[in-house]
């Protein structure tokens, strides 16, 4: 807890420094509001803006005043950043690690994914990953990442506390009890994802005549007010990281590696 307090205090200083140094930019961002976009906001340069500046522009902090004058807003923003740092990195990092591991485990997966990247490199004439490629031009890598998210979700489920007596699928739950939404088990449901314990890198690929598997729930149900906000960003980050790996290197899994980690928790049905 002491470390947390220190971190919050550091983050408050970071926010204050950002407000001091980028006041004009934040004012510009305030004007754009929800309409801010890379295409439509030409007077804002690439690399000049970070997410904190956008969050400051959207927050209740009054730029005309000293940020210290609204300590609650400052604390809330600092807590939010701490949360987003952890929520963002502690989920995408193990997913990337799982993806790299599964790629190394089976050379046919590696070669199919590398082939997709080679095609992109040849078409573009450059080994650099572009934003457009990372956004939408790597369907197989995207399907593979979805499959990793399905089999090894970094957040295996969420809990909710019931605020009134309720019946869920035939079970009576009392006010105040906890309900656990088991994402891992749901994503291994064979009636939704056939052959659920097999990793199929093209499971989520759209092909003619065949319906692709429904999306993964690793970020929360599709139309949920609690669905992960960072989904798009996390996917771009993971795709870029793996695409560079596939384009520039060849790897071999260390002989001592086992796949012991890849177990569904014992309390979940398979």
């Amino acid at each position, binding site marked *: 807890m002491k470390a947390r307090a220190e971190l919050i205090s550091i983050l408050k200083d970071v926010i204050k420094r950002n407000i001091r140094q980028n006041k004009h930019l934040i004012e510009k961002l305030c004007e754009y509001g929800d309409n801010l976009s890379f295409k439509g906001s030409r007077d804002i340069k690439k690399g000049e803006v970070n997410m904190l500046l956008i969050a400051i522009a959207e927050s209740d902090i009054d730029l005309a005043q000293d940020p210290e004058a609204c300590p609650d807003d400052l604390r809330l923003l600092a807590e939010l950043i701490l949360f987003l740092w952890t929520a963002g990195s502690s989920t995408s990092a193990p997913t990337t690690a799982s993806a790299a591991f599964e790629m190394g485990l089976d050379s046919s997966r590696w070669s199919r994914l590398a082939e997709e990247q080679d095609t992109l490199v040849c078409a573009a004439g450059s080994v650099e990953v572009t934003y457009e490629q990372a956004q939408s031009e790597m369907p197989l890598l995207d399907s593979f990442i979805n499959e990793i998210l399905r089999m090894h979700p970094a957040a295996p489920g969420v809990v909710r506390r019931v605020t009134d*007596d309720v019946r869920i699928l*035939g079970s009576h739950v009392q006010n105040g009890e906890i309900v656990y939404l088991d994402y891992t088990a749901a994503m291994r449901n064979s009636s939704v994802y056939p052959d659920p314990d097999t990793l199929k890198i093209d499971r989520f690929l759209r092909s003619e005549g065949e319906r692709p598997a429904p999306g993964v729930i690793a970020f929360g149900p599709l139309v949920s007010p609690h669905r992960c906000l960072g989904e798009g960003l996390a996917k771009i980050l993971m795709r870029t990281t793996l695409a560079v790996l596939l384009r520039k290197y060849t790897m071999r899994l260390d002989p001592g590696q086992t796949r012991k980690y890849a177990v569904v928790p014992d309390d979940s049905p398979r």
Partner: protein
Amino acid sequence: MQRNITHLRSKRFLPDGVTDKGLHRATRHRNFPILGFFVDNWMSRTAGVLAAKYGKAYRTNFVTYSSRLVVTDKDTFREIERNDDLFGSTDAHEVVEAVFGESSMLMADGRENAVRRSKVAPAFSPNVYPFFFDKINARVIKTWTAVEGEVNDKGSVLLDPIFRRHHLSIIVEMKTGIVMDSDMSDILVLRSSQAEKPSTHRPSVRFTMLQ
């Protein structure tokens, strides 16, 4: 038994207007008090392959947790998430509250959640990703170049901690503009406590690169 069912029926089940499948579908037979009970029971036991063993919802009693209902059905998740006045996030995450404070995004429901999300959402809009992409790309290349150097020196490298630092540094830079060159991963409270006990979801990946 009949009284018991009627009693349950009179309790609030879901807010009005919920007509979707999922939870609603599972209880529509409750209109027939006694028979409905068996039909419901039968349906929840036979639907889907999971139900063959545990059902779409089953009770569990962990050693360290109190008894809880585990739900494993996708459609039900949606209903639960939508009705967050009945299924609250507040008070549900004790650990999250301790670490991130009660104002954390994970702790809000209903209107409060909507307001908090709407304030952060513009920073996560796909429209602004291109602003950050060059930084992400540069960091990715830097990470892999560092891995390459380490592999050349030592022959192989453990990727798991590298990914942790890599993702954290990108997120820190995107979110605050701070360029993270030293290893800051230990200062995050959750991370340092997690590092002591390996999680079953966290692979430890050691790779050897072939040039």
